[in-house]
């Protein structure tokens, strides 16, 4: 399964001369948001008495953000994560936290590589295909 879905392609198509860094800007906002949310989930799950509603709230937000940018794998882990929050299953939540952190780290790395390559292509006078 790919790291991103069609939503990411749609965002790329919105980029134009008047907003040449749109995708990079949106990705940066997502990175900031996701890191804060993952840290908040971790802190909440460390508590002696876990507030699963609060954990769920953070997961819900991350699911929303990841849907909006097309971060498919992150979104899918969030869906499973929410089930464990509903069941108040701490171990399940901890496993999902590890998975979501892993998927996010991989996605960030791949997107940063993609953006670097795109910049190199543009600097060399080339163009980046939308699809």
């Amino acid at each position, binding site marked *: 399964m790919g790291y991103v879905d069609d*939503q990411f392609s*749609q*965002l790329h198509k*919105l980029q134009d001369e008047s*907003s040449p860094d*749109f995708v990079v*800007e*949106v990705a940066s*906002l*997502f990175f900031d*948001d996701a890191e804060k949310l993952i840290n908040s989930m971790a802190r909440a799950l460390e508590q002696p008495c876990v507030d699963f509603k609060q954990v769920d709230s953070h997961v*819900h*937000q991350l*699911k*929303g*953000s990841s*849907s*909006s*940018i097309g971060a498919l794998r992150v979104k899918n882990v969030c869906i499973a994560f929410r089930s464990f929050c509903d069941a108040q299953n701490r171990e399940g939540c901890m496993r999902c936290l590890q998975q979501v952190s892993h998927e996010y780290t991989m996605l960030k790395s791949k997107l940063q590589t993609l953006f670097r390559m795109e910049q190199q292509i543009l600097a060399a006078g080339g163009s980046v295909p939308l699809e």
Partner: protein
Amino acid sequence: MIGAEGASSSKKARISENPVSKNRPYFALVVDDDPMIRRIHSMILKSVGFKVEVAENGKEAVDLFRTGAKFHIVFIDMEMPVMDGIEATKAMRAMKVESKIVGVTSRNSETEREVFMQAGLDLCYTKPLTMAKIVPLLEELQKN
């Protein structure tokens, strides 16, 4: 005329006496506490010709209308700090705001969406907004 994005901008939306015209721009307000969502939704709306202003929460949106700003359409998130989408929608309708108000939410619960609709929405969409959701709304504005 709408200025750059930002509810604190001194340039507020202005609509002529005949706001709905194919030769004039359509004005949209995006209300969401998530800066990424504001950026994405603004970009999608601008790509189909809307002039866009943003607000970070329901209170900022209501305050815009109180200061005389007018919009053809408002896209409003349900969950926001300070004033959420439900309270903001109720407040806008109580002020006789006639703009089309479209709720945008990540929540899948039918009950929650129904409560949001009952606040005075014309429509409620699941995030994210897409071209497929926006274009019919623009066409409807042009028809009317």
